[in-house]
């Protein structure tokens, strides 16, 4: 590198090395605050979106959601279809479900909720409802007079939808399931809480219980939920399922999520808006910091010009200095974010009605926001330093 091209780096290094340490620390700290501000809100919304998506996948739809062919109410030839699904590359597990158009009654409290007849052993492999039992136990395949209900159906003090619930049904209580004019008394075997309102407004019975009430329903699922292997794209598995001869309607969890997908889309929109405002705030903050720094050096810049230092050398040195501030800010901000905030919110997540949200920052988001901070810093240095180097030398030195 020619000596001349090294001089901006030389000057920037000397400014950083010998400048006021408190100013340096304060500037890096403010850069770090601007960076954390930029990534915090974004990662919180990412966390909510991610948490909601996981809730949908893990408690309701699995990764892939299969429904009967158009014109059919049920998936026929269940055994063969399940075998084909489970032998497809990228499929970890599958579980057939039967939607039962039933109502539940307890102590004169009656309501219609989604009741699903399942094979508990298979369902366990796809959803995590079995791990969310807050009282009682999960279903077993041989259960024929038991039901497990979500927290929103059971109701009770502190339950969000208590007004529309069974108002305090507990494990061991008998609830009446009414289906096609037939009534069956079932014992509440367990109550689950997934913190996802839609799932917590569901009840599960075994296929054996359903076939006891109406035998024709058994072995004719109207949904099969599929769990895919981690890291495998759902669309690839869907393609393979189709190739393997599954002619039913196959959806990704996003397509099956219904109104929840519009909720996550709204979060995404809010996130973009908040990120934009965050960038503006960071840009203004950084611009002010760098601008004040350079304006304080106006006389020095004038002197450098007077002794024959080329303007590009002067403003490049300030740009390098600003870039160094921003790198320092990003490093300090990352230490605070990943070392303090992320572990803290992992231990104390934001409790929302749909999920417990933690901070989620993708690599792309991190890089994009770090680059934003750096570009803003560079532009903030470029504008005033070029302006000072373009102004009259005497004005820079003497202010006149």
């Amino acid at each position, binding site marked *: 590198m020619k*000596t*001349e091209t090294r*001089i901006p780096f*030389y000057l920037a290094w*000397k*400014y950083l*090395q*010998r*400048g006021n340490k408190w100013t340096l620390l304060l500037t890096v700290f403010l850069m770090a605050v601007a960076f954390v501000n930029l990534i915090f809100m974004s990662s919180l919304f990412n966390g909510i979106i991610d948490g909601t998506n996981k809730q949908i996948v893990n408690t309701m739809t699995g990764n892939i959601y299969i429904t009967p062919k158009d014109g059919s109410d049920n998936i026929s030839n269940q055994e063969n279809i399940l075998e084909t699904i489970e032998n497809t590359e990228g499929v970890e597990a599958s579980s057939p479900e039967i939607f039962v158009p039933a109502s539940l009654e307890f102590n004169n409290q009656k309501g219609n909720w989604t009741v699903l007849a399942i094979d508990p052993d298979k369902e366990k492999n796809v959803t995590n409802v079995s791990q969310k039992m807050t009282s009682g136990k999960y279903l077993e395949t041989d259960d024929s007079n038991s039901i497990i209900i979500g927290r929103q159906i059971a109701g009770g003090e502190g339950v969000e939808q208590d007004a529309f619930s069974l108002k305090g049904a507990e494990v061991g209580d008998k609830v009446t399931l009414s289906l096609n004019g037939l009534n069956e008394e079932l014992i509440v075997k367990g109550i689950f809480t997934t913190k996802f309102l839609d799932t917590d407004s569901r009840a599960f019975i075994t296929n054996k219980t359903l076939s006891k009430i109406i035998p024709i329903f058994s072995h004719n699922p109207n949904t099969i939920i599929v769990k895919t292997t981690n890291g495998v794209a759902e669309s690839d598995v869907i393609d393979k399922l189709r190739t393997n001869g599954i002619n039913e309607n196959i959806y990704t969890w996003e397509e099956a999520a219904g109104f929840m997908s519009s909720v996550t889309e709204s979060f995404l929109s809010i996130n973009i808006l908040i990120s934009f405002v965050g960038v503006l705030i960071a840009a203004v903050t950084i611009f002010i910091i760098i601008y004040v720094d350079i304006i304080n050096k106006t*006389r*020095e810049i004038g*002197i*450098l*010009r*007077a*002794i*024959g*230092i*080329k*303007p590009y*050398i002067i403003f490049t040195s300030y740009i390098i200095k600003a870039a160094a501030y921003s790198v320092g800010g990003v490093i300090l901000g990352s230490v605070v974010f990943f070392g303090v905030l992320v572990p803290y919110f992992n231990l104390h997540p934001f409790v929302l009605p749909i999920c417990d949200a933690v901070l989620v920052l993708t690599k792309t988001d991190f890089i994009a926001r770090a680059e934003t901070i750096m570009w803003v810093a560079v532009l903030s240095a470029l504008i005033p330093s070029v302006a000072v180097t373009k102004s*009259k*030398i*005497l004005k820079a*030195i003497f202010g006149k």
Partner: protein
Amino acid sequence: MDKRTILNIENISKTYKNGDIRVSALCDVSLVIERGEFVMITGRNGSGKSTLLHQLGLLDIPDKGKIILNDQEVVYMDENKRTMLRLKYLGYIFQEYALIAELTALENVMLPAMLIGNSYNAQKKAVEIFRNFNLKNKMNRLPNQLSGGEQQKVAIARSLINDPVIIFADEPTANLDTTASMEVLDLFKKINKDGRTIIMITHEQEELKYASRLIKLSDGKLL
């Protein structure tokens, strides 16, 4: 132009705007400076001394007139070329030392030389100047660790590093005590004796004896 002439100024004028009023700082000033002269410019406050020095030193552009430096017309030269001329041929000493606070005395002196050579040669040359100025033991200090006189000597050393043909000094002793002022003036005398042209502004009568020529200004005109 005579071979001995280093700077030839023909009818330069400069006006400044002070609010709504235009102030004539220089009015048709013509002047010839020869190589090796030690010229002192005197005059009352507001007489146009600094304005003249700034035009001669290419820190400002006159409204009209010609400035010929070393056979080159410089008034209409583009800023990049003027910057190069300032770097290679001119040296400056300001009233308030004007050193870069974050650079040591040695680094301040080396900086202009690094632009036209390599760091090693720049350092070698700077150390030599410090030795001649009896400042070698202080060359690694930052400006705020030096006295006013020492800082001004460092500024003089910086002005010499690229072997300029003319050195401009704007009241270099204004902020110094008597002893430091004498030291600085002795240094100027030595530099002038080595053949360097010096143009200096002063207010002090006792400093005029160092000059080989005096130029008096009043209301923007030469007397």
